[in-house]
C-alpha cells in the first residue's frame, strides 16, 4: 500500500525530470513569442464616431442589402427593427438614453475584428479565422460544427447562431469582404449620410481619430480611441462622448482576452512536449506496476483455481 522511498524517487525521476525539462523548454519558447500581437499588413476597419451619428439606421438596411440577407421584420412583420444583432442582422444601431436625462448616444454595433480574436482562439476547427492580410475575421460553413463557443467567448457578444432550421449558420460582420474584392466600400460606410462611420486602413483611421480628438479637446470620453489598445487592439475603432461601457464596449484592458486567459493553457500544450513526455513517463511506471500485478494475479489463480479477474 505504502510507496517505498526508492519507488518514490524512481517515479519522480521517471515522470518528473522530463516534465521539468518540458516546462522550461515550453516557458522559454513562450518568452520568444512575446505578448505583442502582430497587426496584419493591410489591416482595414471602420471608425465610428458616436458623437456625429444621427441614428438614421441607413447602415442597417444597407448591411442586409450588401450581404443579401432578408430584412429582419420578425418584430411586427412590417418594420426592419431587430432589437439586437441576430442571425439576420450583422449591424445594428442602438440608443443609450439614461433616465436621468444626461447625455445620450447612438451606438453602431458590429464585429470589432479584434487583432487577437477570442472567437477564433476558441473555434475548434478554425471555422472563424482572421485573414492574415486584411485582418478580417470571417466564418466558413465547411469547418463549423455549430458548437456556439464563439457566442460564449466573444467579449463583445457579436457572433450569433441561427436557432431555427437543420442547417444553422453563424452570422457576424465580415466587413463586406465580397464588396471589398470588387473595390467597393462596406455597405454601412458607403451610405452613412453624416460620415459617422468611415472605412479605411486601420492606421489611417487611427490617425484620423486622433486628429478629431486633438481638434476638439474635451469632447470625447477620456480623449481616447476605443480599440487602439483595448482587448489587444481592434480594427474597428470607436469615438464617443459617453463612457464606452454604456455603449456595450467593456473595459478589457490592453491585453487581449485569449492572451490573458489562455496563457497557462498555451504554455502547457506548447508543441505538445509536456503531454508527450508525461505519457512516456506514465508508460514506464505502469509497465512496472503491471508486472507485479500480473504476478500476484497468477499466484492467486493457482490458489483459488479460478481465472484471474481484477
Amino acid at each position, binding site marked *: *500500500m*505504502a*510507496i517505498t522511498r526508492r*519507488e518514490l524517487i524512481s*517515479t519522480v525521476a521517471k515522470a518528473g525530470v522530463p516534465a521539468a525539462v518540458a516546462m522550461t523548454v515550453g516557458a522559454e519558447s513562450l518568452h520568444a513569442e512575446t505578448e505583442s500581437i502582430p497587426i496584419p499588413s493591410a489591416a482595414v476597419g471602420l471608425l465610428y464616431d458616436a458623437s456625429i451619428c444621427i441614428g438614421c439606421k441607413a447602415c442597417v438596411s444597407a448591411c442586409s442589402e450588401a450581404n443579401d440577407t432578408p430584412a429582419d421584420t420578425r418584430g411586427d412583420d412590417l418594420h426592419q427593427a431587430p432589437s439586437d444583432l*441576430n442571425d439576420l442582422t450583422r449591424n445594428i444601431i442602438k440608443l443609450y438614453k439614461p433616465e436621468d436625462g444626461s447625455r445620450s448616444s447612438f451606438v453602431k454595433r458590429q464585429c470589432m475584428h479584434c487583432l487577437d480574436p*477570442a472567437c477564433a*482562439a*476558441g*473555434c*475548434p*476547427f*478554425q*471555422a472563424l479565422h482572421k485573414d492574415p492580410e486584411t485582418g478580417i475575421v470571417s466564418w466558413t*460553413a465547411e*469547418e*463549423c*460544427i*455549430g*458548437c*456556439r*463557443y464563439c457566442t*460564449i*467567448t466573444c*467579449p463583445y*457578444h457579436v457572433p*450569433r*447562431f*441561427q*436557432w*431555427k432550421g*437543420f*442547417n*444553422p449558420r453563424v452570422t457576424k460582420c465580415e466587413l463586406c469582404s465580397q464588396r471589398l474584392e470588387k473595390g467597393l466600400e462596406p455597405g454601412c460606410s458607403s451610405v452613412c449620410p453624416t460620415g459617422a462611420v468611415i472605412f479605411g486602413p486601420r492606421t489611417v483611421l487611427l490617425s484620423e481619430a486622433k486628429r478629431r480628438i486633438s481638434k476638439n479637446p474635451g469632447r470625447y470620453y477620456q480623449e481616447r480611441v476605443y480599440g487602439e489598445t483595448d482587448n489587444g487592439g481592434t480594427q474597428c475603432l470607436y469615438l464617443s462622448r459617453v463612457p464606452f461601457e454604456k455603449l*456595450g464596449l467593456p473595459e478589457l484592458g490592453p491585453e487581449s*482576452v*485569449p492572451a490573458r*486567459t*489562455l496563457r*497557462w*493553457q*498555451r504554455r502547457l*500544450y506548447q508543441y*505538445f512536449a509536456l*503531454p508527450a513526455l508525461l*505519457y512516456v513517463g*506514465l*508508460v514506464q*511506471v*505502469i509497465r512496472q*506496476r*503491471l508486472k507485479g*500485478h*500480473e504476478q500476484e494475479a497468477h499466484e*492467486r489463480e493457482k490458489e483459488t*483455481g*479460478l*481465472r484471474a*479477474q*481484477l
Partner: protein
Amino acid sequence: MSTATIGNAPGTTNEGRWERAVPVYGFPVVNGFFLALVAMTLLAFALTAYRELAGLGPVSGMNDAYGWGIWKTFNVMVLTGLGSGAFAVGIAAWLFKRKRLHALMRMALLTSFLAYACGLLLLGIDAGRPWNFYWIVFPWKWNMHSPLAEVAICMSIYAMIPLALENIPVVLERLWYFDSRLRPGVERMERGLHKFFPWIIAAAYLLPGMHQSSLGALMLLAGERVHPLWQTPFLPLLYLGAATFMSFGCVAGTTMLCCVVWKRVMDMEVLDEAARITAWLIFGWLGLRLLDILFRGALGTAFHADRFAGVFWLETLLVSVGGWMLYRSVRNHDTRMMFLGYVLSSAGGMIYRFSPTTLAFRPNPESLYFPSTIEVLVALGFICMGVAAFLLVVKRFGILPAPIQEWHDMASYFRFRRPYIRWTGYFKYGFFGENEPTDSD
C-alpha cells in the same frame, strides 16, 4: 493483505474481501424499471429526430445570451466529471499503489465508459452542424490552442480507444466462459491486449487529465462574464480536482448502492480506503478553492445577497459536509454516513462544475435561460440510456466486486437451480460443496 481486521475480530481474515467480479445473477434484466428507462430513451431518440429537423431553437431554451444549454453544460461538462472514475480510481490504484482499489476498477471503467458515451452522443446532437465533425481526423485542421478543440478531440479519442479497450477484458472473459471452443482465440487476444496495456492505460490517464482540465479552461475565455467567485486561472485545475472526488463518489457510491439493492457483502477495507482518499481529495480541493478566492480578493462577493453567493455557499456546504461525513464514516465503518457523504460531495461537485457556464454566467445584456421540456426530456433520456446499459451489463458481465464465496454461490446456482441456463458457462467453474466432485478430481 489478508490480515485485515475490519468488521472482524482481530486476527481473523476479512470474510467479505472483494476479490471476484461476479455478475448479478438471479435477477431478471427486464423489469418495470428497466422498461421505463428504455421508454425514456426511445422518447429521447424521437425528440432528437425532431431536433435535427427543426433546429435547436424550437426544442431548447437556449438563446443568443446562453449559447450553451444543459446538454453541454450538464450532460457533458458535469456527467463526464462524474464519470471520470476510470481516471481517478485508476491513478490511485496503479500509480499510487492503492492495490485494494483494483476491486472497484471494473465498476469505474464501466461507469466512465457509459458516462462518456452518452455525453458524446448528446454532444453530437447539441452541435448545430454535426456533419462537420469529420475534421477531427485531420490534425492540421485542429486549432491546437482552443480548449474546446482539446475537449472535443481528446474526449472522443479517449472514449473510443483507451477507455473502450480497457473494457474489452470483461467482454473477452464472458466469451471465455461462454464456449470452450472460443478459448484459444480469446486467450490469444488477451495476450495481445496485455502487450499494449501499458500504452493504453497511460493514455487513459493522460487524456482525461487533459480534457477534464480543459473543460474548466473553456470558461476562461468568457472572462468577466463568469462571476469572480468562479472565474480564476485555476479553473482547469479545480475542474480536474472536482472530477476526481466526484468520480470516486460515483464509483464507490454506485457500488454501495448495488450492494444494497442486490444484497451483496460490502468489503469495508476497500470502501474505507476509497472514502479516506475521497475525503482528502475533497479537503485539498476545498483548500485550493478557498485560498484562490481569498488571494484574488473575491471573498467579499460571497457575502452579497444574490444568487451567486447562494450557489457558492450551497456548493461549498455540500462538498465540505460530504467530505466531513466521509472522513468520519471511516472511523466506525458507517456505510450509511459514507453513502450520504458521497451523495452530498458529488452533488456539490456537480453544482460547482455546472455553475461557471450557467448559474454563475452573466451574459451582457443580462438574460435568462431555463431548459425547455423537450431539452430536459432528451437530457434525461440519455442519462436513462446509460443507466439501462449499466443494469444490463452488471447482470450479464462480471463487473460488481464480491467475495470469492459469491462466485461459488453463482456457479452452484447455475448448476443446480437453473440447470437449463447453459450459456453462462459458469456452472462448470466453482466449488460445489463437500460431496461434489470438482474439475480437478
